[in-house]
Structures are given as C-alpha cells and as structure tokens.
C-alpha cells in the first residue's frame, strides 16, 4: 500500500520509493528511505499534506508525494 492511503497512528516500514530523481533524493535526505520506519501522524484539512513521523522528526508531504512511498505494516520495535 502507499503512504497516502494509510491511517494515522500505526508504524509502517518503507518498502520502496517509486519517486525518482530529485524527489526521491530529497525524501532520502529527510529520512524516508527504504527500510525506514515511519508513522502518519495527521492530515491537514481539506485534503492537504500529511504529517509523517520519521526518526525523531516530523515531515509534511503532499498526498501526491505520499503515493510514491510504498509501505507495509510494521510490527514491533
């Protein structure tokens, strides 16, 4: 599944980034890389960006960007 369709509050593992070039590189620099554990924290109103917990920090991503991040449920630490 992709990140845009995930409900807030569950740990997720990044399986694949389907973004390419600059966008993918930016995501990686900010901690969204293959294997990273992330969590959707909330969504902005009216279909705005999603807030994503990555490592100790928070990122805002548009639903469009989030659709290019493929994740799976992550259980345990």
């Amino acid at each position: 599944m992709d990140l845009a369709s995930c409900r807030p509050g569950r740990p997720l593992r990044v399986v694949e980034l389907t973004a390419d070039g600059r966008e993918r590189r930016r995501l990686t620099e900010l901690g969204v890389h293959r294997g990273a554990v992330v969590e959707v924290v909330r969504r902005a109103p009216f279909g705005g960006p999603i807030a994503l917990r990555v490592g100790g920090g928070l990122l805002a991503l548009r639903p469009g960007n989030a659709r290019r991040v493929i994740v799976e449920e992550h259980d345990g630490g």
Partner: protein
Amino acid sequence: MADVCHEPGPSGRGHRPEARRVALAGNPNVGKSSLFNRLTGSHQHVGNWPGKTVERHWGTCRAGAVPLTLVDLPGTYSLASSSPEEVVAEQVLCSDDVDAVAVVLDSTNLERNLYLAAQVAELGRPLVLVLNMTDVAEADGFRIDGAALGEAFSAPVVRTTGRSGAGVDELIAVLGVLGRTEPEGPTVGPDTRAPGTPLSIDYGEPLESEIAALEDRLARLLPTHHAAPRWLAVQLLEADPVTIDDVMNVEGGAAVVADAARAAQRVLDATGEEPALLVADRRFAWANGLARASVERRTTLRSRTERLDDVLTNRWLGLPIFLALMWLVFGLVTHVAGPFVDWIDGVVNGPVAALAEAGLAAVGLGGTWFEALVVDGVIGGVGSVLVFVPVLAVLYLALGVLEDSGYMARAAFLLDRVMRPIGLTGKSFLPLLLGFGCNVPGVYATRVLDRRRDRIITALLVPFVSCAARLPVYVLLAAVFFPGSQGTVVFSLYVASIVATLLIGGLLDRFVLRGERTDSFILELPPYRRPSAAVLWAYVAQRVRSFLARAGTVIFACALAVWFLLAIPVGGDGSFGQTDMDDSLFAATAEVVAPVLAPAGLDSWQVAGTFVSGFVAKEVMVSTMEQAYGGEATDTEVEEEPAPVDELVDSGEGLLEAIADAARAVPGIVGLDVGGADADEDVDIAAAMRADLEATSDGHATAAAVAFLALVLLYVPCMATVAAIRHELGGRWAAISIVLNLTVAWLVAVALFQVGSTVGTG
C-alpha cells in the same frame, strides 16, 4: 576554486596567533543561529555571499589567546548543490576561508542530522560534532552515546544548549585547537592537507571501483583541494555542479568530468539506479546504523512538540488558530506600534522642527527658503522615514517569533492546500506572508523555495501583497472618505490583496514556465522551541537597520526631491521655495501623467504625483499627499510658539504616554480599529482631498476613492522591491513585474470606478 569569503576576520593585530576560521554547518532548525549568537555575542555581522542572495552571518570570539572567526553556513540537509544554500555551504567548506568545521546536530533527530555530518566528514576538513538542543533531548528521554559518535567520526563531540549557553565555553575551547597538528608551529598552509582522516563509507560495487579509479586521478589533478579526493570522486559521480566547476577549472579537468559522467552511466546501466540515489541510500544506511547504536530513547512519553501539534495543526482548530494569530499580529502592529508612531511624528514635527526654526532665526535665516528646506524638506523627510520604525520593528518581531518558534512551518502545512491550485506550495506562503510586512524581504524570502518556477511566480505575486507601507495610505484615505469605518476599509483591502494574489497566481500558473509544473511538496516540521531573545533581537535590529539604510537613501532622497519639485516655480509669481503648489514643477510633472487616470475618475495632478513618488517608495505617499493637499494650509497656518525646551519636556512625557497607550492597546487588539485619533489634525488635507476627487470624478468621489485605494494596493511595488526582483530573477522578470502590476492596477481601478459611478450614489 570558489573564492567566496573576503573578510579576513580581525586582522592587523600585530603577529598574534593567526585567527582560526571555523564554519558552522548543520540542518535547518537545529538551533544553529542561537548557538552562533551565544558564540559571537555582539561581535557579528550580516551580509550576503558575493554574487548570491543567501545571507551570510559571520562573527568573532576568542579561545584563550586564539582569535576565532566563525562563519554561520546556511542550514542544509546535504551538500548536493540543489539549492543556493547548498551551493554556498559546499563552496565555503571546500574553500581556503575556513580551517575547520563544527557540525551542529539536533539531538532529538540524530539519524537525519548524521546524514549531513557524514557528508561533511567525508569531505575531510577537521571536524567537531556539536550535539545541540540537549535540554530538549533530555526532556524527551533521549540518551546519546557521545563516545560512540566521536569514535565513528574520529572527531571530538561537544554537548550544548544554544539557548541557555550550556557547553558553549567547552565548544570554544575545542574550536581553538581543532585540526592543529603543532600548536606552536606555523599555521597550516593551503597546500597541506588538513590533518585527520576523512570518513569513508562503503558504497558497494559497482560504485567503489569507479570511485577508486576517479579518486587517484583527482588526487593528482587537484593536490591542493581542501576536499578529500574520494569525496570529490563521489560528488562527481553524483554530478554535483560545484565539484564539476572546481574540477573543470584545472587543466585536464574536463576529461575527468567526462569520464565521471561515463562512469555514472555505467553504474546506472548496471544497477538501474542513479549513483546519486545509491550514494544517498548507503549514506543513510550508515547514519541510521550509527544512530541506532548511539541513541537510546528511554521513554514513550509524547514529546512537547507532538502535544502542541495536536492543537495547533488540529484538523478543526488549526486554521482558526492560524487566522487568530494573524489577527493578533496585525493588531500588535497597528495598536501597539501606533502610539510610538504618533510620538515620533510629534517630536520630529514639533520640538525638533521648532528648535531648528529657532536656531535658523538666531542666525538670521528665519522665514527664508533655506528654513523651508531644512524644516519642511529635511526634517520632514527624516520624520517620514522614522515614523515607520516602530511599525516595522513590531511586525518583524512578530514574524521572527512565528519563524523561530517553528510555527511558520505549521502554517505552510495547514495552508499548502490553499496554494496548490495556483501551482505553489505551502512554502510560498512564507514569502507572501513576509510581504505583508515589506515586499522586499518577501521577495528575498523566495529563495527558500526549491524550484525556480516557484521562486518566479511567488516573487511576481509578492507585490500584490499589501505591505505595511501601504497601510498609512489606506488609513489616510479611509479617514477622509470613509470616516467611522476605517477598520472595515482597511480589513477589506487586506482581503482584496489576498484575493488578487490568488487570482493572479492562478493566471501565472497557467502561463509562466508551464513545462516545470509539479505537485511535489516535502517540508520539515521542526520541533517547537521558545524563540531566543538574542536571535529575535538580532533579526529585528538587522531588518530595521536595513530599512533605515534604504530609507536613508531612497525615501529621504525622494521626500527631498518632492520638496524641490514643489519648491521650483514654473508659473505664477512665486519664487524658489515660496511658490504655490499648483504653479510648481511637481504639479507640472504630475499633470503630464494624470490623464492616464481619467477613466478611474482620478485625473488630478495631486493623485498622479502621489503615485509618482509612491514608486520610489510607498512610504512617501502620505507625505506627498500631505504636501500636495496641505501646502496651502501650511502657508496660512498660525503657529503658536511654545519654547522649544518646554516642548522637549512635553515630548518626554509624551513618550511615557505612548508607552502607556501601547500597554492599554494590548487588550483591545482584537478589535482591529485603525487610526481615527489623528483625523482632527488632518482636517484641512481631508477637505482639500475630498474637493479634488469630487471635481475629477464628476461627483462620484466615493467611487473614485475606491479606485484610488485599489491603485495603491495593486500598482507597481516600490523601487526597492523591483530592485529585489531584479536581483533575484534578473531584469526581464523585474520588467514583467512592473508591467503586470501597472496593467492589473489600472484595469481594476477603471472597472471599479466605472461600475461604482454608474451604480453607486457617489
């Protein structure tokens, strides 16, 4: 080699130990500025990087006997040259201008911060890791194994809290000796590779063999380059523009660059991935591994930031809170700054002018044109500049708090959806918001945007944002034509400004650089922090100073120029400095422009003249109007003349009163009710203006006043804003900006007047 730093630091102090030059690198939002403030105190300077629009902060301090020069690099997530900030950071780190680097890390988000730290360590300059914000990290239950970090980087590790200053002395001591092989010996020259082994990350095959091949050639080609050959090889494979420039600049470099491009293609063919992405993945894996080994989080308690976000970015509460905060900012600006504005105005035009008059009378120049020049031209001009200092200071303070606290990024998060339809991101909201203070910083703030297209569209939109300098014009016009509802008029104009910005944004999105449209938006939401008073003070002082510097030249010169235009007679029987305004050169000049405004019901030289001077700076529009409409009144004005000294005493009491008024205004802020108090002193001007607009509009003065307000809102931004756009985007876009604003303003004003005069009562 990029030569980006020209200030040698504190020079010429005999032959004391050579200054150590240290660059402060780090991600955005890691508390680097407050740390820099702690380190340098008042010994800091702000400028721009030569040829760049990125701000450059540098300062000095001492580590015992060793003078230190600190350069605060712009915050970046990497050294990939994909933004002007990253280019500057990379150029400085590779240059002769620094001896060592301090990488500042946010202790609460170490994994991501270690990515940049790794890149800097691979570059190979002497390094210290600064674990900053340790207070927040401890409160949030993080425990960081500094020894493990130090070992992985072969670098000293210092823990600091920029805000309280904890650990700063230790950091200074480390900086004093950082990268020194022989403390007493000669300083390290540019041809000696700095001591310490560069960090080496295993990038795996096929990258490693390509790196090895390039590395050897680069070592021979660039023996004096400050970056490790391995780092240069990796950067070349990533097609990093700064490194490519550096290598191209030496003989035989072009061949290596071409070979690196072929190597990158081979890697892409073999793995299906670009080298830049492979490198980023591996480097992140390294940083991730190290973070896991050295960070322990002992609590599952939610952090303060998360709890605050629950409220501030809440689905339902977020936008209302944002609007309330904006309301508060404008309330602060109008109500709290207002009394100080009145006070400055009173002092400059009261006791100061009176003292000057008394002084000139004493030397026999009373009543001459020279007195008029000094009192009306010079002192009046200075006054029209100073009057804005309190407004801008309060505004910049408010914006500084929003930015420094971390809230500005939340505003971008909440408002991204609003900006998306016009092809921009929530990030563009920041420059536009700054534009409400002054368009100039708004235009310069567009450099935080990642894409050139966003920068262009946003910079073209900023002039449609109603800057603070337009506010006094609204207030004056509203007081004259819409007495009793000034608050509503001013608020409507701000709403109109936002609507115009969005509409024109949609238009630009359809026509400007269509090929570069994209829907990507990724932004860090930094942890909330209490804003640092030192950082805020530096920010406000620097902005106000730069305003004064600009005002000192442009605005003052314009006020004076207007005075001269008004003083030079071209008809009638007046002499220099004693002419009626309608016989002056100013009126003659404005008369030529005025017919353009006829369809908007404003064919009057006073109105045209106001707009002519408003192009030089919006700040002088009010003073021009006052001179244009108030001139006759001034001549006949009967001056009661109290002794200047008494007036100074009065003005001292006036300051206290202004402070008291400002304090009293705080609870009433929510009622946004601007002006009102000064209506009585402008009675003559008001009558003259009303009479003028009645005449030019065939009795539809209200419709003409609405058109007037629309023109003030929409027409060409001031010269300084045009200069800023030219600086950021080049002359072509500056010209486009001017044409765009003139066209839109004229069309809207004419439409409003035509509709208003047909439908309305006038």
